[in-house]
Structures are given as structure tokens and as C-alpha cells.
């Protein structure tokens, strides 16, 4: 095995293209665990942290561009992100421990393609777009199209994620991410729910995105759940519709972390709570 720390995206793509079994290293919090347990044995590890722009959060025409190697801790400490996308920031603040957040990245969370990744539903709800570079150039896809199943992404050979782009935030908007874990920290989500809402002057929801994690082979954007909220003031009836739509979208498994029954039941509960929190933030932000 070799370790390489290229200075440019082009050099990184070269390494990824020219080696069988090359693996990108950003935060390493998944990769090093997989290396230790022999689940991966890459020929070369490509550390992207020394590439310009990978470690920065930049203004992006009123939105944000988050470099692929920006750690969760750097995201939770970023005042601008916290004001605009508190739900995504709270998701980043839920990955592992303080120590893990010092290294883990939201792009790594996405590319590791665990159905239970905490930041993925939040990114999907936020309408984030993923900037991918590869041997044939650069492309951009919505976050929900990044993964195809457990451990699988749409990245082609030689491609790597350069950044995540978050859109400009409309007025009276808020987002929230909640997850259920057995303890208060240090667990993998048994269910995760990300909700992003925008409201009109009259206080009616005019745009909504709802995404669920850990209830299907990949994080899912639930259109019916969003539809249940749009045009409402997020009243009890709308929340009940939301919960039902979420339960209907669940296609979970029984495993050591939770049962099908539990995940289905709790998905709706969390989505409701996240929607209420997102609404509160939308109007708190306005004040």
C-alpha cells in the first residue's frame, strides 16, 4: 500500500485513474476502520486534504461551497452556515464523537454510502448539489442521486467529490435534522429525518423537502411527505399526514440496531418533530 498527498485535483484524479483499488482519504473515520478490519485493502490512499479549496467553506453566489475535506467540526463552528442551514449543521454535529467530528467530513459521510449516514438526509432536504470531478471533467448532481445502495455510489472510476454546494436560502426558511439512537451519543442512527421548509408571508408552507435515513437501502427523499406539508401551516393534521407519508416510504430491515416495526413507527415521529423544529427556526430567523 502507498500513501499519496497530491496538491491538485488533477493529480488526485491521475492517482485514482491509474491505480486499481485507489481510495480517497479525507477525514478517514470510515476508511481507517475499514483498513483495520481488512474490509478494504487499497493499493494507494489518496489524501485530498492538501489540495487547495478542499478544506474551505466559501460563499457561493449567496449559498455556500463546502470543500470535500472540511470536517464536521469546522462546519459546526461556521457561523454563516449555522444561521442559514442549522439542520445540516446539527446533523454534522451528530456524527460520532467530538473527536470523530474533528476529522469526519460530510462528503465522506455521503460517499461511504451508509443508509444511516446522519448528514445525508440533511443534505438531501437542503437541496444540496454535489460537485464531482473526474477524468472527463466536472459534473454536478443532486445529493439524493449520489448513493445507489449500501456502500455504493454513482462515482465512476477516477472520480472524486470536490465540494458540496448549498443553495441560497429564501426568507422564512428553516431546516432540522433529528435522529433516533439508543444512547444520547456515539451510535449509528436507527432512524434519521431531515426536513427543510420555506414559508410565505401568510405563514403557509410553500416549499418543503423531507428526507429519511436508515429506513431504506439509501437515504430517501419523500415527495409525499413534502406534499403533506406544502400549503399548510404545519398544523396537527398536516403533521399526521407527514407521519403517514414517512411510514409509507419506509422499507427498512430488522437488524441489531432496530426492528422494521420500530423504524417505521419512529420515522414519522421524528419527521413530525423535525418539521416543528424547522418551522420554529424559519420564523425565529425572520425576527
Amino acid at each position: 500500500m502507498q500513501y499519496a498527498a497530491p496538491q491538485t485535483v488533477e493529480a488526485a484524479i491521475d492517482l485514482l485513474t491509474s491505480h486499481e483499488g485507489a481510495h480517497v482519504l479525507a477525514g478517514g473515520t470510515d476508511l481507517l476502520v475499514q483498513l483495520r478490519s481488512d474490509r478494504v485493502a487499497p493499493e494507494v490512499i489518496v489524501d485530498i486534504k492538501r489540495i487547495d479549496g478542499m478544506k474551505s467553506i466559501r460563499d457561493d453566489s449567496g449559498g455556500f461551497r463546502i470543500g470535500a475535506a472540511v470536517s464536521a467540526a469546522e462546519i459546526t463552528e461556521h457561523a454563516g452556515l449555522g444561521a442559514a442551514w442549522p439542520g445540516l449543521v446539527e446533523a454534522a454535529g451528530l456524527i460520532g464523537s467530538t473527536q470523530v467530528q474533528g476529522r469526519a467530513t460530510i462528503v465522506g459521510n455521503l460517499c461511504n454510502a451508509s443508509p444511516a449516514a446522519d448528514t445525508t438526509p440533511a443534505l438531501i432536504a437542503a437541496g444540496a448539489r454535489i460537485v464531482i470531478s473526474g477524468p472527463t471533467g466536472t459534473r454536478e448532481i443532486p445529493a439524493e442521486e449520489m448513493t445507489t445502495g449500501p456502500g455504493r455510489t454513482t462515482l465512476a472510476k477516477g472520480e472524486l467529490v470536490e465540494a458540496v454546494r448549498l443553495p441560497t436560502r429564501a426568507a422564512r426558511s428553516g431546516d432540522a435534522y433529528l435522529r433516533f439512537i439508543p444512547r444520547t451519543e456515539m451510535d449509528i442512527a436507527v432512524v434519521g429525518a431531515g426536513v427543510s421548509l420555506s414559508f410565505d408571508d401568510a405563514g403557509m408552507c410553500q416549499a418543503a423537502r423531507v428526507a429519511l435515513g436508515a429506513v431504506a437501502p439509501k437515504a430517501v427523499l419523500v415527495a409525499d411527505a413534502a406534499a403533506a406539508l406544502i400549503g399548510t401551516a404545519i398544523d396537527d393534521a398536516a403533521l399526521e399526514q407527514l407521519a403517514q407519508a414517512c411510514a409509507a416510504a419506509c422499507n427498512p430491515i430488522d437488524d441489531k440496531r432496530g426492528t422494521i416495526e420500530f423504524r417505521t413507527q419512529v420515522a414519522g415521529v421524528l419527521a413530525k418533530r423535525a418539521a416543528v423544529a424547522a418551522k420554529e427556526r424559519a420564523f425565529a430567523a425572520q425576527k
Partner: protein
Amino acid sequence: MSQIHVSTTVNGDAVEFLCEPDETLLDALRDRLGLTGTKEGCGTGDCGACSVTVDGRLVCSCLVLGAEANGASVDTIEGLGQGDALHPLQRKFLEHAALQCGVCTPGFLVAAKSLLDRNPDPTETEVRYWLAGNLCRCTGYDKIVRAVIDAAADMRSQAAQS
């Protein structure tokens, strides 16, 4: 596998070591540099016993490659006190009997210092959540949390006096 030459700063001292490409910073610290104060409890980032800071950022050294430390500044438990003078956290851990077996203690101290560097007056809840990645099986955390809060108060009053 050919070894990688790493130049880094550990507890303020410039050091160099050779390591395997897949060798963790934890193993490099312990086996190459003899700094065995940093402990391995799990090797998967779930226990915090290997906590160190890299360029001021609290991390699990079992989830960092030794090679990544090139050019960085690493701080470990061995650098927490200065000479014979204990850091207030170390003193308060002793006064409050915040350790029983002591194997998690270095990780807790490094993590707690990182908290107090950022937040000199944390609430009990803030202490508990910051330290949630540091497992202790002996104490039930009670005396650890008290020691951290007391050390913070001590450091604030020292800072006010100076």
C-alpha cells in the same frame, strides 16, 4: 511496503519517524516515539482513549494515519503539564478522585483541555456531550464531570488574577 518519512512536532518538539503507509498516528506515537500515555481502547474511534490534538483539533489518533501528521503539530497527554507543574485539569482529577483504573484518563484530560480551550465556562451538559466520545467504565463519569467543571472554575479565577 516501503516506509514513509514523517517530520512533525510533538508536544512542541520537532521529531521525525518512519512509518508504514497504513500505520496509525496512535501506533506511531506509541511504538515509534515511545509516547505510551496515549492508549488504545478500541482502535475504531469509539472510546476516546487515544485522544490527541492535531493542529489544535481534538481527534482519535487511531483514526489518523501517521503519514498525515507530516508538517502538523501533535499534542498528547505527555505535553499537558509543564515540567513538574500539573495542568489544573490534572490536579483536579487527582483531587476529585476522577480516576479509578486510569486507563481512560489521558484521553479524558486531552479532550477536556480541548473543551476548556474553546469554552472556559462549560455547563454540566456541555461537558457531558463534549466528553461523550470518551468512555470510562469505572467512575460512572460523576467525578470526572465535577473535576472538569472545577478545573474550569480554577482556570477562570487564575486568569482573572493574572
